[in-house]
């Protein structure tokens, strides 16, 4: 009799426990803490705000918290390294890094890798095997595209200047290499000089003036960065050489687009900064989730000229959507 009562009591207790468990299961929601992805860009310029837009789109789609930060200057490697250290200390889950320097950022990447934070390099590659993926333009191929367009513009023969922004910048070096390789077997296409003109268009304008006045006849200028392109365009306009000296540029800053429509810049090779931002964050999230990711993702490059710039498809590429 006593044991029966006991058994009954145990049974009721067990049921209550079960019910409690069930209720607990209902209350527990999916309040998982959002992963934090930090995007460290090279600067706060036009190009990078488009990258940021892409990153934000990905962050929204994959439900992660995006933090954007960048040094004021594209050459400020020191600040960028500090930023990386700062966000690693804050406990970032993933890092999307557009390195200012091919070599100097690699210890930072190695450090992040030690901490188990996946790093995705965008736009500029980093000299380390520790990055999970590189998302960006194949700059060598972009250089060859630019060279091909220049050849088409001048009619298979000419003397050219190559104008870069800063010596030792890997992307610019790759573009130059692409141009030289494209013309390596074509003695008619001759690179007269290569010069670095710094980050401001004013200094590039001066440099262009210097180069143009000292030379015989120049048929075209290949401007490897947007500051070089606008500098050269301003100088060509000033010297009233529009059309005589063909200008092939890289990227699509608003100034470059104005010059393109005005006909000073004949063509520009554009990258896809929105895709870089989007795919950078997407790849970081994927490697955080333990999925295998492609080691290199090419976002492509496209040659745009004054005729094609308002074609429906190209409009979409050239003008980042802003209200």
């Amino acid at each position, binding site marked *: 009799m006593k044991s029966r009562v006991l*058994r009954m009591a145990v*049974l009721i207790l*067990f*049921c209550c426990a*079960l*019910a409690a*468990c*069930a209720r607990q*299961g*209902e209350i527990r929601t*999916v309040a998982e803490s959002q992963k934090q992805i930090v995007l460290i860009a090279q600067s706060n310029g036009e190009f990078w705000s488009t990258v940021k*837009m*892409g990153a934000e*789109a990905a962050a929204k*789609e994959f439900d992660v918290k995006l933090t954007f930060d960048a040094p004021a200057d594209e050459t400020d490697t020191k600040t960028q390294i500090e930023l990386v250290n700062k966000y690693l200390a804050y406990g970032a889950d993933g890092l999307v890094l557009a390195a200012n320097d091919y070599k100097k950022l690699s210890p930072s990447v190695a450090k992040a890798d030690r901490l188990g934070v996946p790093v995705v390099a965008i736009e500029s590659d980093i000299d380390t095997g520790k990055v999970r993926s590189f998302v960006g333009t194949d700059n060598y191929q972009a250089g060859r595209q630019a060279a091909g367009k220049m050849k088409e513009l001048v009619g298979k023969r000419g003397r050219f200047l190559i104008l870069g922004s800063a010596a030792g910048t890997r992307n610019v070096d790759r573009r130059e290499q692409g141009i030289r390789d494209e013309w390596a077997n074509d003695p008619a296409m001759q690179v007269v000089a290569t010069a670095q003109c710094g980050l401001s268009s004013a200094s590039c304008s001066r440099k262009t003036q210097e180069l143009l006045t000292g030379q015989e006849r120049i048929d075209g200028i290949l401007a490897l960065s947007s500051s070089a392109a606008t500098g050269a365009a301003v100088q060509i306009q000033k010297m009233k050489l529009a059309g005589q000296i063909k200008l092939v540029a890289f990227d699509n800053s*608003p100034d470059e*687009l*104005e010059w393109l*429509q*005005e*006909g000073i810049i004949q063509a520009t090779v554009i990258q*896809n900064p*929105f*895709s870089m931002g*989007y*795919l950078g964050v997407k790849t970081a999230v994927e490697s955080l989730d333990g999925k295998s990711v492609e080691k290199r993702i090419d976002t492509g490059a496209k040659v745009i000229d*004054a005729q094609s710039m*308002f074609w*429906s498809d190209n*409009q*979409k*590429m*050239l*003008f*980042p*959507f*802003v*209200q």
Partner: protein
Amino acid sequence: MRGMRFRRLYRFKSMQFLIAASFTAMTVLVVLFVSAVLYDKFNRTAEKNTSLNNQQVIYQVAANLEYYIRSMTTVFSAVEQKISDSRELPNTALSDQLDTIFHSREDLVTIALFTESGQRITSLPSSDMRSNTHLAAQNWFRSTVENPNHLSFSVPHVQNLFKGQYKWVVSMSKSIKLTVGGQETNAVLLVDVNFKMIDDLSRSVKLGQKGYAYIIDESAGNIIYHPQQQLIYAGLKYENVEQALKYTYGSYLDDSTGVNRMITVQTVNNVGWKIVGVSYMDEIVTTRKEITSFLIWLLAFVLAFVLLITWYMSAKISQPIQRLEKSMQQVERGNFNIHIPIRRDDEVGRLSRRFNLMVTRIRELMNQIIHEQEAKRKSELEVLQSQIHPHFLYNTLNSVVRLAGTGKNEDVITMITSLSKFFRISLSKGRHVIPVADELEHIRNYLIIQKMRYKNKFEFAIHAEEEALDCLTLKLVLQPIVENAIYHGIEPGADEGLITISATVIDGKLRLRVQDDGLGIGPDQLAVLLSDPSPDGQRQTGIGLHNVNERIRLQFGDEFGLQIKSEREAGTTVDVWLPCLREEERT
């Protein structure tokens, strides 16, 4: 002990297991079935609700968008009115008015008037125009020339007319007539609208967590607005516009992008746009997951509950049966001292009661058998004793000595001969059963001896039917009766007595009768004569009669045995009833 108990409880072939298993299986099946039905029902309802909800939301957006486009059309008409009202163009009054309109709304990008050849008449902003605009080739310009007096809406494009800005706009344009320098000419009025309002409208759409709405152009399927426009432009995202174009309104499921999504379409009147709402099925699935986990919990709970209940119930049902089985096992091993306590008056209770009765009966029968066997052995021992009868032998031999002393040789011979015959039949090769003829011969020898000992105190006569002689009888049944008749009937009396012995067959039964004319037996003594001798041995008389009676009844059953009739001073008749068995029937 506990382990054994446990094993006993979970024997797989036990009734308890059968009950528990079938009950559990049934419950699980029912719960599963109910769960499946609930789940299915919930699923359908969730899908239907989502579809309805999406349609409502999208309809609302379409209504808002329509309202917005009407208001833009109104603005356009106002501008058109102002322009046609002014006699001369350009004039400052008109410019001021247009400027007021232009700045009153932040979604206006351009208000401009061009001649049909593409020359600017007036414009806001009034900044320099770019070269290379290819104005006349632009879509919005061409469509006004092709469709005069019709307000056309362009697809989104970048307005490249004015220096310092590249903005994405939708162009509203119309060809109008106006007077310039006193001359009537055709002109094109352009009002560019940015995406601010459309963006606001679309962003207000809430279709679950991830859902969104986009706008397509009905005629060509161009995407006019998409919250993830850049992704579409960069080719990172794809919308299955063709499918949406087939619908005027309604919902359908689409998995062309690799994800299961519900698409809701609503047409916006008078611009030829369609709003397409996208919601993700996996969000319905999220709630579905909640339901699934709830159902799993429910199932687990019910299962645990049912397991406990059935375990308890089946134990309750099978335990009394198991107890019964155990008791039967005990009986099987020979323990009849068992009594099952009856707890309730159910089937098992009744079965237990019957079992108890049965065991009791068996126990009684066994005791009876033991008792009977004992009695039989005892009486056989007595027969054995009576075969030897030392007292009788001693008396007889004394008589022989006395006769020999007095020289009565004849009598000595008779007596010795009778004694010898008497003993021969007494022994009769150890058999228990002998023919009636032998039994009568035996009693005759006994009577001869006794008659000589009692000096002819009595006479005797023996009659037997021929038929009765062959019958078999237990041996030495008559001797105790005759002994009684002599000692208690004849000897105490003063007169000479007569003892008559007869053997008759009546209705197939053998009757041996011993009749004397002695003193007789009192009714009180007669009543106890055949009953069990009291254990204290007070009653000495009649033990022989009782033994004979017992022997017969043990051998042949209760219908046989002794019958005594007696009357004071008239004598006693003792009938011995036996079955008339013959030699050949004996086995």
